[in-house]
């Protein structure tokens, strides 16, 4: 028995559809050139020495560096602590949300706000405000507590800031899982005489365990890959991401940086594969059923009160940290003189700020629609089509999620500064706005693809088949049926890509040229120098831009959204 004939026919049919074939080819070229190739070059660079051939020399060299060994252990420690703390706090939030009667509307709203913040938040923001709150001239440390030598810089600072940044991701993941636990399981345990705590430890927690592992790994990867926060608040606590950056910009040793990048990449990649192909599957298999009924919410005050108060305090604190930013831009001198002024904003616009805004906005506006369309096309091919290279397209575009920005940045430097394989081919790309746009696209593609896949799985496949059957080719089917049905998802992908691009830092900070200064680089520059007023002014405007984009998205969905109509049909 062999399936070769149908495979051959399928191929024939595929090639009868030129739009489809050229789309696939273009996609493959894009993914290979801008994701696979830069990472591949890093590997080549670190094991191939010119004139000597294959050699582990570079690895030996970096392994001999104290700085590198320290950074490596620092990275693991940081990932571990941030991962655990974020998962625990995320679990508390999810538990309160799913199991407790929260009467206060304000609190509900606060939970919602907190859960979207990390998606839209520019990097640095939490670090900036943490410094302004707890630093040497921090409001809390200096002004209120009169501590004059407070030190927020270092591991503690990074952990606090990263935990507050990443726990909402865990919250959302775990909330989804808790909602799927059938309440009757817990009621059965309760009925057999288990106390509430016993139910939690013997039923809820074991069911949730793979999910918790999943959340931990996701945060671990994020924390390890994070560049902005360790850069700003890390002080002398260097992680792999910052060490790689310094190796490029300070030591001017891109080969060493390439080898370090390989180490960091292997770390995130292994964890990501573990998470994706083992834990995620396990989570799905233990928690398949939908909850059959509404859960009886916990009303016992001795349980609800401390937990809700804790969560409310954390949430309020996060929100307050964002509010600090505009204030930081409006006060004359943080820590000393709290009278209002517009001088920082004036400074921004007097010294090239406008340029930075223009580059950031324009480049992001170019990247966003390309990303959105690309990710929808990838999602469409992955969900609805059969062809040989499909696994590759899916694998690469999702795996890009696990590539730390710094690593990608080094990859682009090594891969494109001398053209493809240093042959000079495509050399013109390096140092242009185009390469920044490409990096933006690569960085947002996985997120868009993932949500596109989720949206497309919702659509009954026979709807598209019937269009196909009536005589539409695949391009036509995509434009007239698929895209209109996932309009909402497409638009939110568009805005997400825009927001991610305009707030991106880790990959592009290595690639910017004086011609294209970006807002995030400016924030980094001034925060590093200790000019918090200017940094805050930049950050405030950035937050305003992001917020406007999101408002626009919500407006669009309200007036042009289709999802509502479509779900009613179900």
């Amino acid at each position: 028995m062999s399936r070769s004939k149908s495979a051959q026919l399928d191929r024939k049919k595929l090639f009868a559809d030129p739009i489809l074939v050229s789309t696939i080819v273009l996609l493959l070229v894009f993914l290979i050139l801008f994701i696979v190739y830069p990472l591949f070059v890093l590997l080549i660079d670190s094991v191939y020495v010119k004139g000597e051939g294959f050699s582990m020399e570079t690895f030996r060299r970096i392994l001999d560096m104290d700085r590198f060994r320290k950074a490596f252990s620092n990275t693991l420690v940081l990932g571990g602590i941030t991962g655990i703390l974020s998962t625990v706090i995320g679990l508390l939030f999810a538990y309160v949300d799913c199991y407790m009667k929260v009467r206060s509307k304000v609190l509900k709203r606060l939970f919602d706000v907190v859960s979207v913040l990390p998606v839209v938040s520019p990097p640095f923001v939490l670090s900036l405000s943490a410094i302004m709150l707890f630093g040497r001239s921090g409001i809390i440390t200096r002004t209120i507590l009169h501590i004059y030598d407070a030190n927020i810089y270092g591991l503690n600072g990074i952990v606090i800031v990263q935990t507050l940044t990443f726990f909402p991701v865990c919250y959302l993941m775990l909330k989804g899982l808790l909602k799927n636990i059938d309440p009757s399981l817990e009621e059965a345990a309760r009925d057999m005489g288990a106390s509430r705590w016993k139910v939690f430890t013997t039923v809820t927690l074991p069911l949730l365990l793979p999910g918790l592992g999943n959340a931990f790994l996701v945060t671990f990867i994020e924390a390890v890959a994070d560049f902005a926060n360790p850069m700003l608040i890390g002080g002398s606590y260097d992680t792999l991401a910052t060490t790689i950056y310094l190796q490029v910009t300070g030591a001017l040793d891109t080969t060493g940086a390439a080898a370090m990048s390989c180490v960091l990449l292997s770390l995130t990649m292994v964890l990501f594969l573990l998470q994706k192909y083992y834990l995620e599957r396990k989570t799905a298999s233990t928690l398949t059923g939908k909850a059959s009924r509404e859960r009886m919410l916990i009303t016992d005050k001795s349980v609800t009160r401390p937990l809700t108060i804790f969560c409310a305090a954390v949430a309020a604190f996060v929100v307050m940290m964002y509010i600090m930013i505009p204030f930081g831009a409006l006060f004359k001198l943080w820590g000393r003189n709290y009278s209002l002024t517009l001088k920082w904003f004036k400074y921004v616009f007097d010294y090239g700020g406008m340029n930075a805004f223009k580059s950031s906005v324009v480049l992001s506006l170019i990247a966003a629609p390309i990303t959105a369309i690309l990710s929808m096309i990838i999602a469409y091919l992955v969900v609805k089509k059969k062809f040989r290279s499909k696994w590759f397209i899916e694998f690469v575009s999702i795996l890009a999620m696990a590539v730390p920005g710094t690593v990608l940045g080094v990859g682009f430097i090594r891969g494109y500064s001398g053209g493809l394989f240093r042959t000079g081919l495509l050399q013109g790309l390096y140092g242009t706005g185009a390469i920044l746009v490409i990096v933006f696209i690569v960085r947002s593609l996985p997120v868009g693809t993932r949500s596109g896949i989720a949206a497309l799985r919702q659509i009954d496949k026979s709807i598209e088949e019937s269009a196909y059957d009536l005589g539409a080719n695949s391009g036509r089917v995509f434009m007239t049926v698929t895209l209109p049905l996932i309009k909402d998802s497409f638009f939110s992908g568009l805005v997400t890509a825009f927001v991610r691009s305009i707030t991106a830092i880790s990959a592009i900070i290595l690639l910017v040229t004086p011609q294209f200064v970006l807002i995030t680089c400016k924030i980094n520059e001034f925060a590093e120098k200790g000019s918090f007023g200017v940094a805050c002014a930049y950050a405030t405007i950035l937050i305003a831009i992001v917020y406007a984009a999101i408002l626009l998205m919500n407006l669009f969905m309200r007036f042009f959204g289709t999802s509502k109509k479509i779900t009613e049909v179900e």
Partner: protein
Amino acid sequence: MDKVSKGVRLENVSKIYTDPKTGKDFKAVDSISLDIAPGSFVTLLGPSGCGKTTTLRMIAGFESPDEGEVYLGEQAINALTPDKRDTAMVFQSYALFPHYNVFDNVAYGLKLRGVGKEEIKNRVHAILDLVELEGMDARMTNQLSGGQQQRVALARALVVEPSVLLFDEPLSNLDAKLRVSMRTEIRKIQQKVGITAIYVTHDQSEAMSLSDQIIIMNKGVIAQIGTPQDIYYHPSSEFVADFIGEVSFLKGVVRDTRDNKNIIAVGASELAVPAYQHLENGKDCTLVLRPEALSVADEGALPCEIVLSTFMGHYQNYHVTVDGALVKVTVFNPKNKKIYKAGEKAYLAVENDSIHVL
């Protein structure tokens, strides 16, 4: 419609799938051959998982066969994509475009064919009249009842005047009453436009009432092809007999053939059955007995014992044993007939003409 409809021919078509659990390949459709005449209404009938949908989807072009060739009219179409095949499918889930209204749904295929605006309008309205949906053209599809949605799906397929209409259990989402009225509707429209229709169902009454020909499938192979009467009265196997309608089987031995009759011994008794096919003397055979062709009486061909006797209103339902084998009997209009009770001994009266021998 001025278009000539085309026949469909399958020659030794197979489809191999990989079982996702065991990872082993198996033939979901195993070397089937069919020849469907232009303009006829054919149903594919069979138990769940027997390969009906797969067969239909190979005709539509959504799946590629691993062996054999599919012909539309005289043209081999294996390598054509669905959009290039002159077939139109009506899906079980209707598959209406939720972002279009009724008119745009029906007009979709016409627009793709570059038909002029005015003509699209006329043709859509004509088809909507045909399926009795006039005046509904501006509704969104979610403002329609299930039966109306089904008719929009039918109109959308019909309006492009395909050579062949394909249906995959189009009525299974409707309630029983609507199912019956929709199926007469479909048959009426099909006959009116004279189009070839291939209809997948696992509802035997649907197959019976609609079809010119029924194709019974089992485990990827064709068990029997024939008119509804053929299949009911002369099933080719126990599977087919059992799948269509109620049936009981009795084991017997062929004793003799004379005067165009086969003499068959069942236990100590003998039956003379019309000889449709040649049976060798001395061979074991199986009698196929439809319950409505049997009755219980004080005298008859085969002695039996009543095991169950239930009053069902318009008939009396008996289970009897003949020579140890269970036989079901229905006696219609039992009011003025003798009713036997469980445990009584009686005879099974058989209309010899209605017995089929396997």
